[in-house]
């Protein structure tokens, strides 16, 4: 029963609904977006309403102006059937409420210049020189009527986007509200720098006399030749009119037909200068704009497929991936590199800190100590902090300029090893060998110094040298001891000749001719004895080497002379001298030592029978002739050969003969230092030594010394009588030997000198002190009791510094020629002196004064 009732009621309503158009007019409501008071706008739109009323049959048309919110509410509640609004609102409502496609598009303007599109303008005051282009808008305040204004905000923002510029940020917007004119006034008042308006606003206000167009300039003005107002943006289609979803097709068709045939009569005016309607324009550009601006209804992030991105940006993606991959690889590589560096640093730090050697890191410019290791702290006796606060100048005894100069050479790589003197905390100065390494540390050049204290080593070396010298001296003395018999034999023969000569002279004193001959023979004997003594003294001399130009022939002759008596007569001595006059640069005593050693060895090897051959010649040594281990250069050499016909040596012996303390002789017969000394002396003289030996046949030692001068250039000291020169000056003569004092007194008196002779050096000093100006010269012996000659001259010089002095000594180990010169002695002579030699020395000293 209930069901039947319901169906009946439904059928009744359906019939009523179908019957309605037959007996009632349909009311069609058109909602129009309005920015002005509704009563005013409604009146203006009434022209259109009346036209549609008459055109569309059986309909009552109402054009209702509405604000944005009212319009949306009306659409939502289906209180209206059609909506006429701006393109932004249309797109929004179409998406939200399913409005129909545009039925028609408004045509505005005037009949002679109808406009189907509109744009936006961007303007500022003409005198605002800071804003000329769109790019200048950033940071300026912009006046807009409201935030969803299509022609007065969204168009302009989109234009900025199209230019690739950022849109105006909300905090820079001055929202003035409606009407649009208030936004223009905001710019005029200075409340905003720039205004966004629908294009034509400025022109309209100018026509109404509200502003002057010249007051404003339009930014980014578009080149539209056929458009009546200044536009800053692209153009967009005018307002569309659309139907709500509930409006049926027939109604829509009637509405389209009516709208497209609407023409405004001459005197009527519609809002916004609407002239009529055209077929609908395309609103895709508007939709595209809203999508780009992320404006409603597109205010959400667009969904993008990776394929789209890949299609458009594949090259950039590949490049970026490659770059990222490179960065990743670089990062990994850097990570491992830095770890390796950190390990290396830690390792270096460990080596540096734990090294048993003293290590310093020094700034080569300032000299400051940048780092020191633990050993340095122990060595120098300072704490680490003290060392790091100090500089190298607190340690090194070199002056600052000298040290800096040395560091420059170190940094340049010229020097790697330097010997310095370092002062440690106790004040002691130590000798150190420093090896240096300039390195870069944190972009700065520093020098790592490894310090090796060599003070003890130097002392040990000095001690060793001294011991060696002592040993050599002992060796020489031993040799002299061996030769003593022969020397005594020679000396006695000489003395016998002197004695014989003097006695014969005495016997024949009445026969002057014979006397002169005997005296001359005695004199020869004296001179020979003197030379013999000189040779012995030269050989026995110890101490520093004194190198000078010598004749090797002379050295050989002298050495053989001394050796003569020690060589058994059963041994035949052969001298083969080729180059008599060649000289070498050498220490004569050392050369004699060499010859003595070689000859003694040769004699001992021959066991009292055989032949000793001494040869001397000149050779040219090629590079190939110089054995390894010798620092010799190719060139001319003087070669000394010592050959014996003795037992010879085998290969094993030959390999060891130059080793110190190696000897083939029985215990007590040799020190084993002979040939080692020979080799050392030869090396000192930049020479070389070669040995050839055959067991049972003998040995040949060849010594080569660099030739200094060719033959004929050496001047032999001639033992000729020198001219005796007289004088008249006053001489202070001092010698503790009465015989010498007397002899010398007589000789000098004979020469015309005034002599004041003393045997006591103290008395001589007193005498001089009492009359310093009374003497022109002092001649003194060296070895005297109380005051030695050296001390006497020193004292005399204190009284009269310019006093000329001659020292004549038999032998003294206390003074030599160099030392004598050093204390101001003008001549240093050895006894005995011939009178001519003495007179010439005196004259030379006095005349030089």
């Amino acid at each position, binding site marked *: 029963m209930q069901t039947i009732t319901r169906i009946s009621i439904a059928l009744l309503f359906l019939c009523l609904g179908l019957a309605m158009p037959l007996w009632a007019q349909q009311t069609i409501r058109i909602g129009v977006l309005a920015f002005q008071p509704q009563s005013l706008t409604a009146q203006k739109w009434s022209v259109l309403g009346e036209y549609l009323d008459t055109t569309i049959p059986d309909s009552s048309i109402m054009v209702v102006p509405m604000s944005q919110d009212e319009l949306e509410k009306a659409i939502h509640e289906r209180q209206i059937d059609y909506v006429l609004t701006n393109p932004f609102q249309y797109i929004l409502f179409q998406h939200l409420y399913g409005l129909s496609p545009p039925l028609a598009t408004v045509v505005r303007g005037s009949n002679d210049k109808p406009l*189907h*599109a509109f*744009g936006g303008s961007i303007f500022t005051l003409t005198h605002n020189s800071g804003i000329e282009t769109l790019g200048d808008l950033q940071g300026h305040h912009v006046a807009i009527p409201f935030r969803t204004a299509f022609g007065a905000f969204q168009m302009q923002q989109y234009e900025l986007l*199209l*230019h*690739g510029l950022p849109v105006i940020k909300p905090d820079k917007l001055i929202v003035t509200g409606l009407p649009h004119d208030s936004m223009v006034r905001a710019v005029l008042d200075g409340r905003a720098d720039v205004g966004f308006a629908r294009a034509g606003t400025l022109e309209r206000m100018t026509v109404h006399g509200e502003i002057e167009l010249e007051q404003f300039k339009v930014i980014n003005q*578009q*080149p*539209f*030749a*056929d*458009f009546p107002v200044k536009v800053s943006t*692209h*153009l*967009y*289609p005018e307002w569309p009119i659309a139907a709500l979803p509930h409006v049926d097709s027939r109604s829509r068709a009637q509405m389209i037909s009516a709208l497209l045939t609407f023409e405004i009569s001459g005197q009527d005016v519609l809002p916004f200068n609407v002239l009529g309607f055209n077929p609908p*324009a*395309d609103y*895709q*550009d508007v939709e595209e704009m809203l999508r780009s601006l992320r404006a409603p209804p597109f205010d959400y992030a667009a969904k993008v497929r990776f394929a*789209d991105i890949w*299609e*458009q940006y594949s*090259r*950039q993606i*590949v*490049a*970026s991936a*490659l*770059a990222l*991959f*490179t960065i990743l*690889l*670089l990062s990994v*590589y850097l990570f491992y590199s830095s770890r390796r560096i950190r390990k290396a640093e830690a390792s270096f730090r460990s080596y540096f800190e734990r090294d048993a050697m003293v290590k310093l890191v020094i700034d080569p410019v300032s000299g400051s100590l940048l780092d020191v290791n633990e050993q340095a702290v122990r060595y120098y006796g300072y704490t680490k902090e003290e060392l790091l606060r100090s500089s190298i100048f607190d340690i090194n005894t070199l002056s600052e300029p000298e040290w800096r100069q040395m560091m420059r050479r170190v940094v340049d790589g010229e020097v790697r090893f330097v010997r310095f003197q370092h002062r440690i905390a106790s004040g002691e100065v130590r000798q150190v060998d420093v090896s240096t390494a300039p390195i870069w540390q944190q972009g700065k050049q520093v020098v790592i110094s490894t310090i090796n204290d060599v003070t003890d080593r130097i002392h040990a070396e000095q001690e060793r040298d001294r011991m060696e010298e002592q040993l050599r001296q002992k060796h020489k003395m031993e040799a002299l001891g061996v030769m003593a018999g022969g020397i005594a034999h020679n000396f006695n023969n000489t003395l016998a000749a002197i004695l014989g000569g003097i006695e014969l002279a005495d016997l024949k004193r009445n026969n002057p001719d014979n006397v002169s001959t005997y005296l001359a023979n005695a004199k020869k004997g004296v001179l020979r004895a003197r030379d013999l003594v000189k040779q012995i003294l030269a050989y026995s001399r110890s101490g520093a080497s004194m190198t000078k130009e010598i004749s090797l022939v002379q050295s050989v002759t002298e050495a053989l002379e001394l050796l003569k008596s020690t060589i058994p007569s059963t041994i035949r001595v052969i001298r083969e001298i080729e180059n008599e006059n060649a000289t070498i640069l050498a220490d004569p005593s050392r050369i004699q030592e060499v010859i003595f050693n070689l000859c003694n060895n040769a004699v001992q090897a021959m066991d009292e029978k055989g032949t000793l051959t001494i040869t001397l010649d000149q050779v040219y040594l090629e590079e190939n002739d110089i054995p390894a281990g010798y620092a010799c250069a190719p060139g001319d050499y003087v070669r000394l050969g010592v050959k014996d016909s003795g037992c010879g040596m085998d290969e094993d012996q030959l390999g060891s003969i130059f080793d110190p303390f190696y000897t083939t002789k029985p215990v007590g017969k040799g020190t084993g230092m002979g040939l080692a000394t020979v080799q050392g002396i030869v090396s000192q003289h930049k020479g070389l030594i070669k040995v050839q030996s055959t067991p049972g046949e003998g040995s040949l030692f060849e010594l080569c010394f660099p030739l200094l001068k060719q033959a004929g250039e050496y001047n032999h000291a001639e033992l000729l009588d020198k001219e005796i020169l007289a004088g008249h000056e006053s001489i202070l003569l001092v010698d503790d030997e009465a015989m010498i004092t007397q002899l010398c007194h007589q000789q000098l008196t004979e020469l015309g000198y005034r002599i004041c002779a003393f045997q006591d050096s103290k008395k001589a000093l007193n005498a001089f002190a009492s009359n310093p100006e009374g003497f022109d010269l002092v001649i003194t012996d060296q070895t005297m009791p109380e005051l030695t000659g050296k001390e006497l001259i020193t004292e005399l010089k204190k009284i009269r510094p310019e006093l000329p002095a001659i020292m004549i000594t038999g032998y003294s180990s206390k003074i030599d020629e160099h030392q004598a010169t050093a204390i101001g002695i003008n001549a240093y002579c050895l006894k005995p002196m011939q009178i001519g030699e003495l007179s010439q020395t005196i004259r030379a000293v006095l005349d030089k004064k």
Partner: protein
Amino acid sequence: MGFRCLYCRFFPYVLLSALALLSIIALSGCFDSSQRPMRVAVHPWIGYQSLKLSHQGYALDPNLIDVVDSDSLSTSSRMLADGQVDAAALTLDEVLALRAKGIDLSVVLIFDASAGADLLLARPEIEALADLSGKVIGLEDSVLGRLVLSEALKRGGLEQDQVELRYGIVSEHSQLWQSGELDALITYLPITRSLQSQTHRLFDSHDIPNTILDVLAVRSEKMEAFEDSLTHLTQHHFRIATRLRRMSADIQHRLATLVDMPVIETAAVLRELSFPTLQANQNLLKPDSAQLHDTVVKLTRIMQSAGLLKGTPDLEGLTNSAYLPSPLED
């Protein structure tokens, strides 16, 4: 240290340097061309204005494309022949003529096809093409004029010796018509209002679709070097072409300014042009395109008969679709 050790030690540096270099090359390739921009001559014909519109829309990269203004088709043609520009917007017949002169050109883009813009107007009393027999027809002494005439006569079942021809340049067409000598006139848009009122359209390029073509011709030897420029250009053409097809108000106003015509007339011409889509371009420019081949044969025949072309032109390499954008970029 042996070579092997040196190699091991420096290999990471070499590898990283190579990768870094590749990245730089790849990245720089994304943003910049290694050479000067491609120079393209464009004269003020509505069909070619997509380049100028792209330029106005700040879309064309000046590092890739340099739009060189030309005052006419013949100037563009001469500039391309002389090598002053690398490419030019030309009619297809002009491209054939230049190729016949030995200038190796390739068509890489079809800007537009006349779809009504070239037309045959006739007195109202001439109702069909067949009625043109024995009539006087005015036309421009150009390949296009002859092409429209040829096609119109063919449709009307007429031979050329059945009509009498009067030649005059386009700017004189209105005057020529007013002289009263002509029964029909072959001309192109825009036409004057008086012509519109006194004539009716008997035949137009609607009837011969994809035959009268405006193209981008490039000197073949430059194509490879300007690959990026060409792709960039075609890509932006299709973006503008979409708006041209929609006839947006903004485009109409911009075009009107560019070609110095009122907006209404510009819109009228625009309606008589078709802008081939990317797909249509690909179909027309592919090497075995039968449609384009037919058009070229027609043009060749007409040009040969007019003495504008000697011999059979080599069509090998005439078109190249390699520089069209991928469909996603359209």
